[in-house]
């Protein structure tokens, strides 16, 4: 009896511990995979645009046909920062979009995968005639900040000063007027969502999406 009970108890204890550890590790793991996919996709696109990757140029790696080649200036920034701390416009959502699960075909996304260890970032997104939201997610997936441009504060677009956890230094001069938000973790992601209420509106909204910036600020 006792010889059966002990391994059974051990089995249950190990199962419970595994369950608990995996449950808490899962969001961090999924977030890390998703953000590194966004970064590596941007780096591949930037290489293709900069012509440094001969094999990739002219290949479908640069995205669907309706997605322009990455702007050379943006490509240079993406390569210089290895995909961190830079606003990356995603191609319009289609059935080819596989980076993040359950993408919305009614939204145009721009993402900034951040690491605040070198200091704050300033994120800016222009006002949209349809709807724009800026949201920030910690490394454990928590959506600790969300705002949209529908209110009186959004008529000039949205700007966000993202500071590292525990940072109490005064706002840098370059960030005047930005909403100061403290990230609970050094790493995370900021998303801009532009609503595409009608396909005809796509070119106009793509132009706005490309004006989203995410840069270090002093």
């Amino acid at each position, binding site marked *: 009896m006792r010889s059966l009970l002990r391994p059974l108890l051990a089995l249950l204890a190990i199962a419970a511990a595994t*369950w608990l550890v995996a449950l808490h590790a899962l969001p961090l793991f999924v977030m890390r995979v998703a953000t590194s996919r966004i970064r590596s996709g941007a780096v591949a696109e930037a290489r293709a645009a900069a012509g440094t990757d001969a094999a990739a140029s002219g290949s479908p790696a640069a995205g669907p046909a309706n997605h322009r080649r990455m702007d050379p200036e943006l490509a240079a920034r993406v390569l210089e920062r290895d995909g961190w701390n830079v606003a990356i416009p995603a191609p319009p959502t289609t*059935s080819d979009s596989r980076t993040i699960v359950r993408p919305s075909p*009614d939204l145009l996304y721009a993402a900034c995968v951040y690491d605040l260890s070198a200091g704050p970032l300033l994120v800016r997104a222009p006002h949209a005639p349809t*709807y724009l939201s800026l949201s920030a*997610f910690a490394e454990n*997936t*928590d*959506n600790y900040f*969300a705002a949209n441009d529908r209110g009186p504060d959004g008529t000039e677009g949205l700007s966000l000063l993202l500071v590292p956890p525990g940072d109490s230094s005064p706002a840098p001069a370059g960030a005047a007027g930005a909403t100061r938000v403290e990230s609970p973790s050094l790493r995370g992601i900021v998303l801009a969502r532009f609503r595409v209420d*009608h396909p005809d509106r796509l070119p106009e909204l793509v132009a706005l999406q490309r004006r989203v910036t995410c840069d270090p600020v002093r």
Partner: protein
Amino acid sequence: MARTPHLAKAAPGGRRSLPRLLATGVLGVALGLGLLWTSLRASAGSVRNGPWRTDLDIGSTAAGPLTRARIAVGGLLALRNTEAIYFHADTDDEGRTLDGRCDYRVEGRDPGSAWWSVTLYDDTGYLLRNEANRWSVSRSTVARGADGSFSVRVSPTGDGPGWLPSPASGPFNLTLRCYEPGEALRADPGAADLPRIVRGGCR
């Protein structure tokens, strides 16, 4: 395998103790991961409204570990409920799994939010390839009756603004996104007037 007499003494009948220990460990880990997988599948949102399910803790820093893990897997980067409420359905009004071999109607009125959309996903959570490149209907694009109500036909074949393409076979699911939800919707999403999902003919 060399064993010290001390160990042999401590574990009577211990010739099998190491393999047994290993087996217990492997089984325990497998059982734990299996339980996690099942609990993530089972906990599809605590608030029910007809076939729709949601959870007000989505994205919130108040989310429990189970909600957080479920969102990480099924809807990473979902917004918290001040910005959007996400309802998810994988069955019709009568609880039958949404199946590509059947036609459905999604019908109702605007839920209490500034904007909404209904998007169809395959069972892996991605958009379905279709010739019309149509994956959703929204407040802006849906076809309405004279009284403002809408009725969307979910079917593998169709045409026009009232059609949402579904797969020819196999399970699929729907996500209702309500952006800038009103006070009433946020206070009690379980009581909101959400679209019905009515099954029509099956092939």
